[in-house]
């Protein structure tokens, strides 16, 4: 079965995620935009390294079958 058939759903999902929306699909799970702030670490030479922030998407499996 081709994914093209579900292109409208996928486009809608993508659109919502890019808008920063948390999308929960019953029976599948939740897609959640996550922002990781800038963080600082000390490298092996003892210097402070600033890592840039990052926006990403996390997926949480719908283990309960519920819908948030």
């Amino acid at each position: 079965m081709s994914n093209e058939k579900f292109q409208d759903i996928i486009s809608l999902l993508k659109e919502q995620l890019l808008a920063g929306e948390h999308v929960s699909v019953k029976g599948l799970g939740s897609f959640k935009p996550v922002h990781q702030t800038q963080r600082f670490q000390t490298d092996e030479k003892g210097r402070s390294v600033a890592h840039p922030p990052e926006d990403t998407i996390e997926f949480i499996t719908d283990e309960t079958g519920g819908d948030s």
Partner: protein
Amino acid sequence: MNSNDLIALLVQKLSIDEEQAEGMVSEWIQHLGAELSTNGQADIPGIGSLILEGSKLHFELDPGFAMEVNYKYLGMKPIVISDDINIGLKEPEVEDAIDDEVEEDSVLAPSDTVEMDEVLPSEEVIADEGASDDEEVAETEDVSEGTESEELTVTEEAEEIQEEEVQADEDFEPEGEEDEEPDEAEPEQSEEPEQSEESEEETEELDEATKARIARRTAELRSTRKEKKSNNIPLWVGLGVILIAAIVAGWQFYLQPVMQNPASLVGSSEELNTVIPGVDSLQSADQPVSQPISEDNQQVDQQEEALSHNLASEVQESPAPAAEEAVVSSNKKDSVVSAPLNATSPNNIPPGQPKYGLTGVVNSQANDGYTLVLFSLSNRQSAMEKYQLYRDQGYRSLVSPVTSERYGLMWRVSIGQFATVNEALSAVEELPTELAKDYFITKI
């Protein structure tokens, strides 16, 4: 957004009834479940893949979509900061390399030079001693043979030409010479054993192991000499200078039209309205927008500071006409450009304003520090609106064009000018929550 919201949106977007939309979603979930059970993986094109790992479902974000989601921080790389902040990542490595070279030289040069001076003369003496015996014998033989054959030829010719010279032939009769030469050679041969005895006495003093060690060490020193000769550090330094000059020249070439026409930095809204065009590869392949601090970067920063000083007043005086925005299409293809456009010359800064700070008027002399970036936008108009918004709120508001190979011109809106990262972090505490939760610190 939950499933009901998604279905409602589908209904609205596709103009279908709710049951159809529910059916679509349900069918999609079944499709994904079937792929997972069959292949252990279900693709959601353009978003990512669900991968079954044991009993757990793992989501792997599509690299292109990951870049779309992370567009604000695209191309940013980790930067190394130190206690005094302005020391970059590569400086210690360069120093280490230099130290290593110095250490190598210091290890090799003094002792080897001494040893070389000590060893080479003795080696030459040995070579001379070895060669003197053999060469002298060989020379003697050559001379005697050559004299004999030449004299025979002269004698035959003399006999054929003139009888008077026969006497001369007799004087130079080969037999006589053959008899005499051995006599002359004999003393030489008799001297050779004496010399060889002397050399044997000398060589007895140097045992075989010492000679071997000297020869080996000499060979090593010679090879070291060759390596030293092939040291191309001046050549590389020269090439480096040429490269830096080329970079600076290119940089000025790029910025020249910008200086003449600052509004040309402003991208065409029509061209740049698409937030992320053609995303298809990993972030790591991008041109880094924020690079580790190095001496070169510091030089560039100084240039930027000088340029931004010139740009500031011009930009503020002349809003970007639409016709001038077309120039950006050629500029945005270049590599990295970062020049804060809104710095104010020191003469226009209110008296008593500190050089660095979160609020006040942007000071061009403080562009050697750090700033809090709040937005990176592809739309220049949006960036200028943000810039104006924070400026009206009293912040030192900066907008800087940054160019990446992949996404062209982006506009980075930031607030504050800080001498150190720690000062910037302290200033974050003064920010409203909506700003403090989403920022990053970078060098101006």
